[in-house]
């Protein structure tokens, strides 16, 4: 089994991608809504990722 070495950012983005796909597929009732919800969830993950990253950067001093 090959080993995967990812940075925090890459791993969190990959996590967001897989999770958004599943949330989009199981949550809504039409394909259009699923696509929109999946994209929205991914965007929320990305915003939270950047927000928390900066928060930790400033909090660390």
């Amino acid at each position, binding site marked *: 089994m090959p080993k995967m070495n990812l940075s925090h950012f890459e791993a969190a983005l990959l996590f967001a991608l*897989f999770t958004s796909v599943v949330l989009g597929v*199981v949550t809504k009732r039409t394909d259009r809504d699923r696509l929109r919800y999946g994209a929205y969830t991914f965007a929320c993950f990305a915003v939270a990722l950047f927000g928390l990253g900066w928060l930790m950067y400033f909090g660390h001093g």
Partner: protein
Amino acid sequence: MAKEKEPKQPTTPFGVWAPAVGLAWLIPGGGHLLLKRTGRGVLLMLAITGMFLCGLMMRGAMFQPQSGDILTILINTGGFIGDVASGILYLLSSWLGYAQPDMAGHVHDYGTKFLVTAGLLNVLAMVDTFEIASGRKD
């Protein structure tokens, strides 16, 4: 003012939804494929299997139920349930010896979370399969 009681939905027989939900547990996306929701089934299979494989390649640890203080029991039992929810992916990786011991490092930590989350996402897929099989969702 007294609230009117909502009419109860008729219960779907066990034999109607159980095979689809069982297959959804065993093979991520399999329940949707059985119910002829091919596109969604393939997407679920790719996403959940992809997440699990990434977790394995990051050398994430598999949880085992442990006794001890309440937090240890909660974390390890919850993690174990999350791992088992991945179905055949968990069974195969355990039988073939891919279960890793817990190691320090952020990549291994992410791997462990990927493995558990893959199982939890499969639980969502199972619930969706149940709703489709029981006619609550198209």
